[in-house]
């Protein structure tokens, strides 16, 4: 191998006669010889243990029913779980609807708001570094802590949000207490938490923009609005789609903020597919059924991912 040839001097060094250094030398030689196996092995082991094995086990469980007890083995039931989910479970379809509603509303708002903020932050102004650091903070904090504090803030009587609303002569809402407003309240928290992520990604994209088109536009007398609409945004499309991919995939799987703030209520108004799967498994003890739900969620996320990646490839071909 090339590596062995590169260091001939080390091989002809006198061996000290102690067993350990001989073994070490043999070990190092073995690794040198089999580099293409040795390097990927830890990654493959981790991938297998953390991703592949759980996936196969979940798929296996989804064709059985199991009450999460070691005393009763899972029963093989063919496709019964899937048939029940698709044809006899209105709560499943409701959770899919809520998931889509939540994801698209939250991510849509984040993209628009994030891009706008990034465009503003892209200029030079006094204190811009501090402002940029402060903007990143919501993303850095723990979702669990954030959810608890926002729950307190949304309290209809003693919460800060209603206090501010009444200060500005707006009606005080029930927020998390009513099925209609609960979802919007959680979307608000999600937007607050993850808009900085979009800001970061778009800022990076803005720094990579080519200069010539802008100079040409200035020469041609384009207004700032036209520059924005006809130059900046089209250039930013691939970057925005990258942000969209990351955020949408994450939003479809959101669990922590919803679980802590409303636990899927009131009356299942905020129960997304992920939350429903969790409830079925850990509260209702339906191992097989929830495994099937989990696989369906995975498929949905996968499909969305594939669509978006295709879109990005198309856009990034300039």
């Amino acid at each position: 191998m090339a590596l062995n040839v590169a260091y001939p001097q080390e091989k002809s060094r006198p061996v000290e006669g102690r067993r350990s250094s001989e073994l070490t030398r043999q070990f190092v030689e073995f690794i040198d010889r089999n580099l293409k196996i040795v390097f990927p092995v830890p990654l493959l082991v981790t991938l297998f243990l953390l991703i592949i094995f759980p996936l196969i086990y979940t798929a296996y469980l989804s064709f059985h029913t199991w009450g999460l007890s070691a005393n009763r083995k899972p029963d093989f039931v063919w496709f019964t779980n899937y048939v029940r989910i698709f044809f006899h479970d209105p709560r499943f379809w409701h959770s899919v609807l809520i998931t889509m509603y939540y994801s698209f509303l939250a991510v849509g708002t984040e993209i628009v708001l994030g891009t706008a903020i990034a465009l503003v932050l892209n200029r030079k102004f006094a204190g811009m570094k501090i402002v940029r650091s402060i903007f990143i903070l919501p993303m850095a904090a723990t979702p669990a802590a954030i959810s608890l504090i926002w729950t307190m803030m949304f309290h209809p009587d003693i919460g800060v949000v209603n206090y501010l609303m009444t200060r500005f002569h707006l009606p005080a809402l029930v927020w998390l207490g009513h099925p209609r407003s609960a979802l919007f309240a959680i979307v608000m928290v999600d937007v607050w938490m993850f808009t900085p992520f979009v800001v970061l990604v778009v800022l990076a994209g803005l720094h990579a923009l080519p200069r010539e088109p802008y100079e040409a536009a200035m020469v041609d007398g384009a207004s700032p609005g036209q520059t924005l609409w006809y130059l900046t945004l089209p250039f930013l499309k691939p970057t925005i789609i990258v942000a969209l991919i990351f955020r949408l995939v994450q939003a479809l799987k959101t669990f922590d903020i919803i679980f802590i703030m409303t636990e899927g209520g009131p009356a299942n108004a905020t129960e997304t597919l992920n939350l429903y799967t969790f409830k079925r498994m850990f509260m209702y003890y339906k191992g097989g059924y929830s495994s099937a739900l989990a696989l369906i969620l995975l498929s949905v996320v996968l499909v969305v991912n594939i669509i978006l990646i295709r879109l990005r490839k198309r856009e990034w071909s300039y």
Partner: protein
Amino acid sequence: MKSKRVVIVLTIVGLFMATTLLPNAIAADTFNWKKCEGTKLRFVMHKIPPSKAVLETLPKFEEKTGIKVDAEILPESQFRQKVLIQFASGKSDIDVYLTMPANDAVKYYTSGWYEPLGNYLNDPSKTEPGYDYEDFAKSAREGCTIDNTIIGMPCGFSPAIFYYRKDLFEKYNVAIPQTFDDLEAAAKKLTLDTDGDGKIDIYGWSNRGKGRVATSVFSMFLFGYGGRFLDDDGNPVINSPEAVQALDLYGRLLRLYGPPGSTNFNFYEVYSLFQQGKVAMCTAGASTHKVFVDPEKSKIWDTVDYAIMPGGPNGRHSFVVVWGFSVYSGSKNKDAAWLLVQYLTDKSGMKTLLKDGGVTVARSSTWKDPDIAPITKPKKLFDLSLETVEKHGNPYWNPPAISVTELRDALGAAIVASILGEDVKKAADKAQAEWVRILKEERAEMKK
């Protein structure tokens, strides 16, 4: 060679001494605390009023028995999930754990996770003389027995108590409600705008409304009107006229006289509002009293008072939460585990738990112990708790089934619908249909 001889002699002497000291451990006929010396136990519980006192007695247990205990206290829902996952895998090293039979009993029992303790009680070599199982309060014993099998030793119970603001009752001339009608009238009278700004400042009534967690409080109204979860044949009857009446009242009380956002309230939100003086009446466990009279945390610490929960035409049915300690059936140190359970729940153990204050322990004799009498203050609260448990206590505040959580979710949805002012009969019928489906599936599963 002299050193070798010394070694041999010392070994022989040592063996001799060891054998003379062992007989205590070998004699199986007499009970001995040090029988399982050297074992290591794993003990898991969630936070309940006596948990701090329990932790404090563990070092004394280790001294007495030589058994080392590795104790863990977790928040309630994490505790449930952790224990569930551990037991489901079949390879748990948990030996002793806290159990709330009203919630867990059926599931854990049918899954075989409880070690039946009846045999241990009857074996004099395993149980200390004077343990006296009959000394536990009747509903505590019943609460920890399922299918004639004793699955845990009761540790304490917490009955639901009716708390109210003495000052408001006196100011507006309201008597302590005895019936649900009285309760509604009092709530209406005490929903007040005290500073004339058009906004309500004090709400007459507040309680849980967050779906599943509200079903325990709701059970008081359900049973009070004569309703039930299941009929004698085990079929659900939660859309019976009595149940619909109870749902209607529960929702109406919160909708008209309760603070906004009740549908997201668990007990914590209710207590906070009551502590801040924004609510005139609520229900809480007997142990919550400590929280209400703490001058640092509660604005109403000097004007809170309590009484027995009002009842309906079918009487008062305060729900009683019973906690017990159980031994895991897959434990490898069952005898040692049983020693720990005994130590925590025998007469002196219960005395220690009660001394911590605010804990209603499950043994009747502990209440009458002369040592305790000066410590149990306020006496009125403990007398009230005992009376509630003995005369009006209902330890069966959950439907007796495996899928308790799912059933509670379905009933909780009906409660939320009632609070929001929707058609109560329709919501009850929907919950009933869900219950029928869930129980049918469950029974089909069990038959296999």
